[in-house]
């Protein structure tokens, strides 16, 4: 028996609520009987509760960024019928690209915004041309010109606005972020072409994207920096909401966070809205469940699937660059890179969340909370060895997969679709 979506959501909700409540209690009543009682009752492994303060919650939210964005991207792709298990690779590529471009623009103590804008626009133009050549932007020349031109202009406007609003170094970092998102999107486009145009096995092609990224990022790091790890770069900093950030608990967790955290808090409900309430969302679902129904209703399944896969690239780009530029401020390319399986965990979060953006977000938060716990315990010098603590999220993923079992995968997921026209 598979658990019903309601049960699944209820479980997730309970977990998230429990974390928030525990955090709030400990934060609000640190020295009271209630706090102590709860603390005493639950702190089986030393004083875990002492760790679960609002800083812990904030760090869990920060850590959930790459996982949750990968999960959101995966939702769009898979619900449209394309299983994108290359998300891990897209995260790696965007994490690397962000740092590489940021280092290029801001390294050596000088800052150059101009080349960043040029690079960004060149990639945007290339993407637009590729989209036009693949027939994704429309049927008539006018339509194609308007859409391609509009896309490039919008990118230019965004870059211009960023430069106008932020100081040169911060602007350069943002330009690097945008570039990373576009590069991730470009790789998603490659994956889409391979699977949709050339009918590649989606699982194998996704593995290939991962393995390519696992080779390319350290390779390029070595070329540029002579080592697989990059030197440090500036991060995107934090956005503090005036007034609200003074609130207890919530202020620390929600209103004094990195910009990418805000993006995530925005992207989750937006994704849900798009899937549930817009025509595009209807088409994505139909394309994954019964592409022929969509085709006979006169909607181009191919374009819907391209759009969904590209979206997974955009989201993964935000997640990957959000990790490297938003939080860490460097790229680590040794071993399994700094992404270290977060894309795979994102896929699990997507399954656990039953392809629902809110569910996936909650599940991502759960995995991130475990990750944060591990960091905190390490910081506090608990006796548990690092290397064992590091396995906790991975073990949890396996347990979750075993408990969730078969989710209701979209009927046509993984299947190539060919319109009947001869």
């Amino acid at each position: 028996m598979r658990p019903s979506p309601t049960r699944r959501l209820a479980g997730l909700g309970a977990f998230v609520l429990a974390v928030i409540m525990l955090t709030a209690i400990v934060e609000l009543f640190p020295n009271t009987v209630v706090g102590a009682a709860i603390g005493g009752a639950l702190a089986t492994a030393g004083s875990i509760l002492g760790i679960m303060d609002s800083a812990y919650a904030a760090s869990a939210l920060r850590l959930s960024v790459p996982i949750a964005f990968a999960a959101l991207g995966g939702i769009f792709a898979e619900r449209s019928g394309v299983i994108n298990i290359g998300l891990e690779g897209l995260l790696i590529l965007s994490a690397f690209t962000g740092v590489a471009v940021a280092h290029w623009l801001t390294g050596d103590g000088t800052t150059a915004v101009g080349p960043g804008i040029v690079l960004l626009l060149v990639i945007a133009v290339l993407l637009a041309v590729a989209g036009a050549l693949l027939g994704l932007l429309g049927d008539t020349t006018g339509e194609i010109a308007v859409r391609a031109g509009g896309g490039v202009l919008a990118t230019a406007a965004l870059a211009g606005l960023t430069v106008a609003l932020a100081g040169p170094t911060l602007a350069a970092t943002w330009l690097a972020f945008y570039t990373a998102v576009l590069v991730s999107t470009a790789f998603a486009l490659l994956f889409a072409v391979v699977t949709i145009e050339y009918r590649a096995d989606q699982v194998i092609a996704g593995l290939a994207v991962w393995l390519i990224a696992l080779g390319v990022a350290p390779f390029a790091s070595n070329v540029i920096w002579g080592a697989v790890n990059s030197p440090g770069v500036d991060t995107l900093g934090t956005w503090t909401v005036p007034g609200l950030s003074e609130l207890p608990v919530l202020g620390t967790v929600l209103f004094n966070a990195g910009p990418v955290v805000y993006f995530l808090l925005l992207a989750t409900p937006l994704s849900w809205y798009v899937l549930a309430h817009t025509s595009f969302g209807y088409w994505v679902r139909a394309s994954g469940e019964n592409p022929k129904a969509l085709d006979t209703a006169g909607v181009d399944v191919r374009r819907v699937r391209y759009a969904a896969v590209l979206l997974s690239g955009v989201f993964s780009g935000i997640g990957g660059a959000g990790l490297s530029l938003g939080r860490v401020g460097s790229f680590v390319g040794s071993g399994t890179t700094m992404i270290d399986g977060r894309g795979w965990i994102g896929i699990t979060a997507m399954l656990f969340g039953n392809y629902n953006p809110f569910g996936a977000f909650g599940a991502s938060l759960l995995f991130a909370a475990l990750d944060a716990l591990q960091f905190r315990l390490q910081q506090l010098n608990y006796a548990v060895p690092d290397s064992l603590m590091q396995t906790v999220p991975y073990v949890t993923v396996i347990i979750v997969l075993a408990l969730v079992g078969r989710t209701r995968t979209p009927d046509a997921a993984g299947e190539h679709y060919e319109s009947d026209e001869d």
Partner: protein
Amino acid sequence: MSAPAVDLRQITKQFPGVLANDEVDLTVERGSVHALLGENGAGKTTLMNVLYGLYRPTGGTVVIDGEPRTFDSPRDAIDAGIGMIHQHFMLVEPMTVTQNIVLGNEPQKWGGLAVDRERAREAVAELADRYGFDVDPTATVEDLSVGEQQRIEILKALYRGADVLILDEPTAVLTPQEVEELFGVFDELTEAGKTIIFISHKLSEVTTAADAVTVLRDGKDVGTVDADSVTDTELAELMVGREVLFDTDKPPVELGDIGLATRDLVVEDDRGVRAVDGVDLQVAEGEVFGIAGVDGNGQSELVDALTGMATPAAGQVFLGNEDVTHAPRRQRIDDGMAYVPEDRQARGLVMSYDLTENGLLGSQRDPQFASSGRIRWDDAETHADDIIEEYDVRPADADAAAHSLSGGNQQKFIVGREFARDPDAVVASHPTRGVDVGSVEFIHDQLLGLREEGTAVLLVSSKLDEVRGLSDRLGVMHDGELVDVVDPEEITEEELGLLMAGERPPDVPKATRRVGGEAQ
């Protein structure tokens, strides 16, 4: 008189190696119900796919309302007011009725930022109201019955402004009573000025529901007749080109012990619904026990539980007098059960294997072909050659991959392989589906031959003439239950129809055979 709604002139459609339509003419008057009659493979569906823009014709003209048209895609056909209801519904099951109907044409609000669900629901409700359809716009499609889903498909076409509705074998999945409701819908629609074309190979339906009938045979049209004045016999002759006599000769056979039986069998489907609900049946050695019923009433699940493809939720399955309820499939094969599966391309054959390897499917550990786990490929190939020869499988090449065979030849190979096991019990699920007429008779003869050798045969088929002709006793399934076991020679088609719909007409001729000394 106005121009006909649809006028197909000299339509030819050539596929690689197959001439599917050969200069077919079809004229359909506005506001009429027109039937397209023919055997499987006569070219009916191809012709309709041409009209719907799915195929471009090799030759000929499509004229709609007096205007010649060229359709590059269904989109063009939809714009010209043509709607098609496919045999396999084009519905997105987890989505609601409304979402399915408006798919691709969703009413928008907020400048396209959201689907206007209110307006969509109203439009659907209004449409349903106008044609007297009883549907709940907010229901999820997968919760609806097949008949209701079909009406959603019709509404979908109407929502897109269809004036001409094409229905591909609309009655194949319906009970006789649902069929009647569908024909009622036809009346509503034609009164509102819509034109209906429906594909069928059932004579009685055609004469009941249609105004005019066009008969196709081997891709050619062999004439259009007035449905009111034509007789079934005349239509049948047009269809097959010769007089059909379908009578199977069954010599009496001494019955043995019980070969195959179930007791209070309950099988649940993936969703936990009882697909088979308390079925008791006994098939004696030397008897053909037929199962009739509309597809999807638990026959597949019953077969799965009998053959070991599924584990029942409750009850027992017996092979001979051995309880095999929880015995794995392997043991049932070893104990002498043969099984002709319904889905030959998923189960019955490994499509990428050649016939030698496919001949081993199920017998890969049989000492006849394997000694201590090592397969003797020479023997396997000889075995495949024997089946090929005896059952006239073409191409006669044991090295040919299964996917390179036509459906009929694939089926013959499976039947040959299973019957060659020298089984004690046979479960045959739609053994002649998609097989040419000559092979059908051959397979029937083989089945009856097994019966004479004292094999217990359970035959599931949706072809009523087949189950009636071959069975000694006939069980009727409805909604997972074995409604009744009747005498196939005495029962009328009407009574059978009622039983298939789950009703119990009075005085049905019961099967009176005695099985294994026990009264039924």
